[in-house]
């Protein structure tokens, strides 16, 4: 049954069979939202849990994310015309200005995609204005900021202030993460949350969405 093998393909990071299996389910008339909800997302949830427990490691998570992305790319056209399709919340993510580190940010991006979010990755060295512009453009309700350096984490404050001062974006949920940041720092700069690890970031974003 493709439905069983889809979840296994996600967990095992097996990209070879995923396209054929997803297409077969679609051709059998299985609802695209159902494939996402009952196969892909539970598969990635297991990957996230195993990563959190150090039972899976970064290469395996990357492979699973690649399988997930392949499946989502196939489902996307079907989801957009599907009256049963649930709105996928858009999350903007980026490393703040002055900081080129992207390992942690990329891991959060991958796991957010795996958790079913639409993710706009702005990359590294991102100025505050670009976070605002892209949030408006994509109507994103959640922004994730990353920094690895003590010097650049202070640029998070500027981003948060810019959102709070913007009439249309002041309620945007802002999550921060990266080695030097802390819960205390997050509260101090007026962010909505802090995540010490990638799995914790996903939990926080899900919490923001009431999931």
């Amino acid at each position: 049954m493709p439905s069983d093998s889809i979840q296994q393909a996600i967990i095992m990071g097996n990209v070879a069979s995923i396209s054929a299996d997803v297409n077969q389910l679609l051709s059998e008339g299985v609802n695209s939202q159902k494939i996402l909800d009952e196969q892909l997302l539970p598969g990635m949830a297991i990957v996230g849990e195993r990563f959190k427990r150090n039972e899976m490691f970064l290469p395996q998570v990357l492979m699973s994310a690649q399988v997930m992305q392949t499946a989502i790319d196939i489902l996307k056209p079907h989801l957009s015309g599907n009256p049963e399709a649930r709105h996928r919340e858009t999350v903007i993510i980026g490393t703040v200005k002055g900081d080129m580190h992207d390992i942690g940010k990329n891991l959060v991006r991958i796991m957010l995609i795996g958790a079913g979010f639409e993710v706009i990755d702005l990359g590294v060295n991102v100025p505050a204005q670009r976070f605002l512009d892209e949030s408006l453009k994509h109507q994103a309700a959640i922004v994730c900021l990353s920094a690895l350096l003590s010097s650049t984490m202070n640029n998070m404050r500027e981003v948060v202030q810019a959102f709070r001062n913007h009439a249309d974006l002041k309620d945007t949920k802002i999550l921060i993460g990266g080695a030097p940041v802390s819960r205390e720092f997050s509260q101090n700069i007026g962010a909505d949350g802090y995540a010490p690890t990638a799995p914790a970031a996903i939990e926080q974003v899900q919490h923001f969405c009431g999931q």
Partner: protein
Amino acid sequence: MTGRDRVLSALKRIETSRVPIGEIGGGYTDVIIQAVLGDKYDLGPDAYFLNHQRIREILGADIVGARVTGPPVEMVGIHEDWGTETFRDYWGATHTQPPDATVQLVEPIANSPEELESWRPPDVGDFDSSQISRWKNNTDFFVLATLNAGFDLGYELLGFERFMMWTIQARDTMKQYYEKLIETNLTLAMMSAEAGADAILIADDLAFNTGTFVDPNYLRSDYFPILKRMVIEIKKQGLPVFFHSDGDLRNVIPDLIDCGIDVLQSCDPNANMDIPTLKREYGQDLAFMGNIDVDLLANGHVVEVENTTRNLINDARSEGGFILGTSNVVASYCQPENLKAMYAVAHKELK
């Protein structure tokens, strides 16, 4: 007692009148050096050597980092997004440094496993080791020659995600890749030894704050055996081997000991790498260096720095095997007063 003697005593598990203290690599960024040296900061043609010597003398540091240097990078173009120059290093990767930011990989050495198989490392035989001999011949610092191995350098040249995926998708190719990188770095180690290095530091980040990037079993089967051969060859030169990695390495410390590593550096408290705890478990086989959080030096108060340093010294000094330092290097955003406080405590806390 010279800095060199003090570090060597620590490695022999002899407790000295004060703990040895120092940093790896360049140790102190230029902003920090200027702040500490003030009007003693040299601007002449020999500024690098003089300023690095002076800051160590003022702080009372025992260690200097140095390395065999290659030819200057080659400018190859302008980055489309940032408008900054792109440059190719001697390994063949292209980088750029955007304004107010750190260096970024632009073009990796290979875009496919097949390309990586045909990639050849540079001939380093004519590289320059005079930096090492100069420190050795003109100062009493413990000269710690820095080089890389196969993992950290491996993903710097390929890009992190590509590297990680290929550990699964192209396992044999990656083993050959580690071999090539390590063989080249071993040549650099031999040149460092010949130039008078007191020890070799292998800089090779393997971990996040929550554990190793890859499965420890993968490291055991595919990487550590190659690393071990490198360490054995270095130790044939009579040099101790330091190993730097950020992150939580507790799952692989016995493996690093098995590889022959003598000193583990970084020991970041944010990654649960507490030196007094690690010393109790592994102190017979492994010495430890670091443990002062760089962020404490950046954001803490002087009293906090003094107390943390004092407590660490008192908990870790017994029977040697401990070198005080930061868990990375003294970054430009650290407070010079905090740095001075850390070193002053090390000098005050006598046996």
